[in-house]
């Protein structure tokens, strides 16, 4: 994927660029918002990563200008204060996702991957399938190998998010935001508890494991490779 990172902290930018290229992406780095506006509107990128605080043209105005120019490339917004007004402002300016500094690189990479491979038009599938696991979003039913599985509503939405992102890593924070709408970090094992309940229902009784824990990063649901 081709990524444009707009970040004025050189150390951080170099670190992220190095990590991205190790993960097989191409990462261009710009330190100025004004330059970035020209670049982002003239070059095709798969993902923009925009810092909130930038010299000359700040991240919010840059995003607004990029969107006003009709560029629909997915954008990830980096902010220093999470969960409060900065996040809402970023999303309102046209960001597709946000990440609070300081972040773990694995978190950033997971989010870039989720954004970059996001289908251009969200297809409205009503039945999700991974291997022999099937989720019917209309009937709200789950079956695996023909066996009906009963899930709590929260477990169902957790499974739905995992299946919609089949094969991608979803971090603990991403799950908290998407499943629980929690934009803060709980001190207890909310995610772990529900993942383990879900796992005991959809994986444990079966021979093949579909829900995988990615150490220090998050979770991923996929068919055996």
């Amino acid at each position, binding site marked *: 994927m081709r990524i444009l990172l707009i970040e004025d902290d050189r150390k951080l930018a170099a670190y992220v660029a190095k990590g991205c290229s190790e993960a097989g992406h191409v990462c261009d780095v710009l330190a100025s918002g004004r330059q970035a506006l020209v670049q982002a509107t003239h070059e095709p990128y798969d993902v923009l990563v925009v810092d909130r605080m930038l010299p000359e043209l700040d991240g919010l105005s840059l995003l607004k200008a990029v969107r006003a120019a009709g560029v629909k490339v997915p954008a990830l917004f980096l902010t220093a*204060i*999470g*969960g*409060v*007004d900065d996040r*809402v402002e970023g999303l309102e300016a046209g960001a597709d996702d946000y990440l*609070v500094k*300081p972040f773990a690189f694995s978190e950033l990479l997971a989010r870039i991957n989720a954004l970059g491979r996001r289908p251009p038009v969200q297809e409205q599938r009503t039945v999700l399938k991974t291997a022999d696991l099937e989720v019917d979003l209309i009937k709200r039913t789950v079956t695996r190998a023909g066996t009906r599985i009963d899930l*709590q*509503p*929260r477990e169902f939405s957790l499974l739905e998010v995992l299946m919609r992102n089949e094969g991608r890593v979803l971090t603990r924070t991403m799950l908290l935001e998407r499943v*629980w*709408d*929690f*934009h*803060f*970090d*709980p*001190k*207890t*094992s*909310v995610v772990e*508890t*529900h993942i*383990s*309940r879900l796992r005991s229902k959809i994986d444990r009784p079966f021979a093949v494991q579909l829900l995988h824990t990615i150490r220090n990063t998050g979770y991923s649901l996929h068919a055996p490779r």
Partner: protein
Amino acid sequence: MRRGRAPGLLRSTPFRLALMAATLFIIAFGVAGAVALHSIRADLAEKLDRSISDTYEVMLATYSREDVEDLIGAVNAHALAGRGNSQVFLLTGPDGHVLAGNMSVGLIRPGWATQPGLELGLPGEASYRTFTGESDGYRLTVGKSEAEISEINVIALTSFASAAAIVVVLALTGGAALALSVQRRIQTIASTMDKVSEGALSERIPLSRSGDDIDALSAQVNEALDRLEASFEGMRQVSVDIAHDLKTPLNRLRLVLDEATELQRQNKEVSKLLDEARAESDQINTTFDALLRIAQIESGARKSRFAPVDLGSVIADIGEVYTDVADDEGQSLVTRIAMGPVEVLGDRELLAQLFSNLVENAIRHTPDGTAIEIGVDEWASEAVAWVADNGPGIPSGERDKVLRRLYRLEESRTSPGSGLGLSLVKAVADLHGAALELDDNTPGLRVTLRFSLSRT
């Protein structure tokens, strides 16, 4: 620094008001006096005229066509009886000769006239009121001195003037005295504010106990100063806390990294130490983020995003999320929701975080087997929400302190946590105007929040 200098007495508002009141009073006094004087004068003049015309009638009655002698006699008798020059009479015949009387012919006009004594050939400065009538060529003039009236005039005027002088002096000195006392109080307020602006935030305006408007205003200013002092103290406390609670883990982080460097030099395994370093930096970040959040919540900016929120659904969500978590930790969580929506005006995300913090506190600080309850109900036009447990609770002396930033009970110092959970709860509760109470659940802790219901 610009200092509020006290204005001179003449420019002070109270003195100007006193002066204005005195002026109005004097004008009113003057008008009333003029009206009274005028009516007294009119009354005296009317009495004088009546007595003149009475005398004239009496004299004329003594005259008959054939005999003028009686009239002459009567005039002379009256003229003699008239004390000094206070009454004057004159009778002239058809040929203009003086027949009787005690004044010279002078300039006598027919009918009513008011003339100075000189014109009538009389001594003294008094003027005279005269009536002159004619019958068969005989002319009779009856007159009376106005000296008495002018004497009364003078008395009235002088007494009025001295009364007015007393009023003016009283109004001005009273006004000045009042103004001075009010100005002294204003001066006290000004000097208090000067001290406050120089940093003495504990200064307060002394109240006079009279309960007047200045006292009411001063009390309001004092209240605002209380809040200012509290928030300033809060900020100062935070910097001290940050210094302690962030620098301590930063210091630990530094030590861990030093150790890792050292081990690396000896070609030993460092990944365990690096994990430790990561956990340490995550903890620093969590604390810092929580402090920023609380500061942002306390600034009140989020109030602009307030909307009606069903507390029942917020608490149902939290209950649902944490029931399994509590189960896994060996505790139980029960959710009790009122029938029907319990609507309050607020920020759903912050309210969710508030109740999540309370439930997490209960889960983390109570032993296995503890029963936790979260619930909401409508009670006396209030929305009452609670999180209660039957764990060890908080000693009554510590309950206020746990709401403070970064305060942690000695017992919980070793368990992970920023010490900011409850102060965030308090900040969110304050933002929503909700009362936050920590009580003994005999045994355990009971946290109650009282919101006012939103009226739609």
